[in-house]
């Protein structure tokens, strides 16, 4: 149940899988994304409402064949340059897009968690997106109203980051909870990285609790959500998001950065040590 992250990724994530690493601005599972890169997973279909830095890294390192998403950018900064390079220039390989709205993605996850074939919503009305994505119309059997239907998300693997797990692998996260509960419950297998293991989970207001028996593997990854934040543990690294704009703009700079901080490090502790080392050199 509680295993090293490298073992969890080796066992549960295979080439060609549909993988959703979710986190809505908070608790983004970056350490798990880095492990996918170290283990050179290929041909993944990556699912995420808000692909940001760690998806830019996965795409730039050639892990992804397809992206299912609703907003792909560097929040508060601008573009994701590796995502753009893949879509606009096919580097390092072409990236197929399946694009939705936030409401559509959320409905698709909720439907997956509920074991339904599709999610239903008032959405995708007008505009050019419906012709470019997987959406259909269903008619309400009671009123005749036409509604949008989106196919349920049923990822092979759901990956999230949480604050705590207990020794049996029950997980608790709190603060902005995004779509993480639905991601785990919609997925065939799931990996949860946590800030720490505690003896007992202390009940908290607005917390999401996931029992051990819906999770495939729990892995300890302290500061594993960097550069996003973990409420109660550390703040968002806003400077990193700004710096990423420069690092990711150029292919060679990007590759060198990934080599130094991800490929040449063994785990999340090594990643953070390499960031500190870089700061010390620069100072």
């Amino acid at each position, binding site marked *: 149940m509680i295993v090293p992250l490298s073992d969890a990724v080796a066992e549960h994530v295979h080439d060609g899988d549909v993988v959703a690493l979710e986190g809505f601005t908070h608790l983004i599972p970056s350490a798990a994304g880095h492990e996918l890169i170290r283990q050179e997973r290929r041909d993944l279909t990556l699912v995420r409402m808000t692909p940001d830095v760690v998806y830019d890294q996965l795409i730039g390192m050639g892990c992804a064949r397809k992206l299912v998403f*609703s907003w792909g950018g560097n929040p*508060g900064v601008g573009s994701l340059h590796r995502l753009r390079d893949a*879509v606009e220039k096919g580097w390092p390989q072409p990236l197929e897009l399946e694009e939705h709205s936030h409401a559509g993605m959320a*409905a698709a996850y909720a439907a997956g968690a509920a074991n339904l074939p599709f999610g239903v919503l*008032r959405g995708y009305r007008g*505009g050019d997106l419906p012709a470019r994505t997987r959406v259909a119309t269903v008619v309400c059997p009671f009123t005749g109203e036409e509604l949008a239907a989106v196919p349920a998300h049923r990822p092979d693997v759901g990956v999230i980051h949480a604050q705590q797990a207990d020794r049996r692998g029950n997980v608790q996260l709190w603060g902005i*909870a995004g*779509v993480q509960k639905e991601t785990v419950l919609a997925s065939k297998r799931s990996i949860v990285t946590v800030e720490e293991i505690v003896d007992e989970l202390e009940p908290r207001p607005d917390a999401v609790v996931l029992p051990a028996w819906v999770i495939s593997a729990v892995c300890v990854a302290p500061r594993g959500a960097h550069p996003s934040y973990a409420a109660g543990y550390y703040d968002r690294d806003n400077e990193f998001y700004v710096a990423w704009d420069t690092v990711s703009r150029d292919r060679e700079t990007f590759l060198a950065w990934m080599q130094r901080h991800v490929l040449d490090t063994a785990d999340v502790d090594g990643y953070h040590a390499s960031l500190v080392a870089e700061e010390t050199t620069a100072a």
Partner: protein
Amino acid sequence: MSMNGDRPYTADEMMAVEASRRLTDDNVCFVGIGLPSLAANLARRTHAPGCTLVYESGTIGSKPARLPLSIGDGELAETADAVVSVPEMFAYWLQGRRIDVGFLGAAQIDRHGNLNSTVIGPYDAPSVRLPGGGGAPEIALGVDDVFVMLRQSKRTFVDELDFTTSLGDNVRVVVTDLGILEPRPSEDGTVELTLTSVHPGASADEARAATGWDLRVADDLAETEPPTENELTALRALETKGRS
């Protein structure tokens, strides 16, 4: 930020102040990051302290002391009346029509208030892949009043969108750095965005020159009230806190 001629405020400040004035104490407002967040928080600190701010990350009734840097800042959750999941936000609160005002931005806007935040160029081979619609398609149709904040230029105010991300049906006002555009019917009955006010120092000609279609100008064209001392003080307090 550049200064606005010899006026003691910037173009961004004029935009934030003018947008904030349109919010009332009773509004429940869906807020994005950047200028919309500045405008909505300014309203709460001036004439509309009861205005409820909702961020799509799931925070309802946020009362941030400093400007948030992302829509999911911890500050927004810590100061909220309630924090809900993202599926709940879009299903129960937005689709449930509990939110009456929504702010949107975009890379392109047309004369009907339709917005593009998806691609520049063809969808399959874009010259610029933009971040995408995010919450915009359903916000545009799920609130009563959409407020758009956009700097005016021919590149942004276009005759024809490269891609229609969200519909302009509920767009009530577009606040730009030059003035205010509102949907108005013309003699031939068609409704389109019309220049109804220019900010101090700007002119209708300037606004026309920064628009990619033949911009209609209202007969009763007004001049926007400049920011008051009180508004500027409140605005700058928010910005200063945001930077610390």
